[in-house]
């Protein structure tokens, strides 16, 4: 094969052009931040960090059992107990987020949250974390099972809603994401009633 043959050279050039344009486009699409050592005075530049390409940002919430694994969720919860569970949070919004999980107990399906509205049930517990882009967190929680005694023996839904802190207004904004767990509400053994 002669490298300088016109056809061979054209093929090589085509490959090089496509490769270099793809590489340049990939670099141009990525977000970068400059890393500074803030403890030095003035802050010392230390390099760059790529945030990757954030075509469409999203947040995620997941409900795990007390060992932070999927499955083996409690099917019965006891009035007045503090139920151990684990919540998974993930931030892929392209910027840091302050995320809050609000725990509620819902007895009626009409009180369930939707993609746009949170549940009107009272907040029984809140768990707040700050996550950088592309960072996740596992939160071990002990949620308070508080409900009217009239619900004992029936089904309740444990709802965990994801809220984020809005930097412009300073208020919490419902993300439209939630997870829930259906369980039967019972009285603690030995608690009477």
């Amino acid at each position: 094969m002669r490298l300088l043959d016109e056809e061979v050279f054209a093929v090589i050039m085509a490959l090089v052009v496509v490769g270099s344009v793809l590489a340049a486009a990939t670099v141009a699409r990525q977000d970068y931040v400059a890393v500074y050592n803030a403890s030095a005075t003035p802050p010392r530049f230390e390099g760059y960090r790529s945030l990757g390409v954030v075509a469409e940002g999203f947040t995620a919430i997941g409900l795990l059992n007390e060992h932070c694994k999927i499955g083996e969720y409690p099917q019965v919860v006891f009035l007045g107990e503090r139920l151990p569970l684990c919540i998974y949070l993930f931030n892929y919004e392209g910027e840091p987020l302050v995320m809050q999980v609000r725990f509620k107990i819902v007895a009626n399906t009409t009180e369930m949250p939707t993609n746009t509205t949170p549940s009107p049930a009272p907040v029984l517990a809140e768990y707040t974390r700050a996550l950088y882009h592309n960072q996740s967190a596992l939160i071990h929680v002990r949620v308070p099972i508080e409900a009217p005694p009239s619900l004992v023996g029936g089904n309740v839904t444990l709802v965990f809603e994801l809220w984020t802190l809005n930097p412009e207004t300073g208020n919490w904004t419902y993300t439209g994401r939630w997870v829930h767990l259906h369980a039967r509400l019972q009285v603690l053994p030995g608690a009477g009633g």
Partner: protein
Amino acid sequence: MPRRIQVTRLPLVAAVLAVIAIAQLTASAQAPPGGSGGFWAHVREAYGLILELHRNHVDTTELTMRLDRALVLWDEGNRTAAIEQVQSVIAEAEALRSVEGQARLRVALYKYGVAAVFLSIAPLTYVLLPRVYITAWYRARRRWVVER
């Protein structure tokens, strides 16, 4: 006559003022800067600064992790440590604001510089590849002897 009424009401006015003063003192004792409201105001301020830095291309991974630590400490009931932590985040974020402009420029130069290097590979290949190939071809045959 009006003077006598004022004198008789004096203890009542004093009592009302005392109640107001006690209420004020109680309220200020319940909501000092280190109280719940104060902590969340600090969190909002810290988060605002972190976002501003991030949007100006300053890395805030460390600051965000420390803010997260402050929130965990608060949830654990370690209020004093949580407030100290979030205040240190604010102080450090304020210090980093001085390099916002520099960071924006550095990131733009780096990003488009690297992209330009990649784009320059094609014309460089077009110009240099034949020359390099010819040079290598001649060097490989440098010791060849031509015979009739």
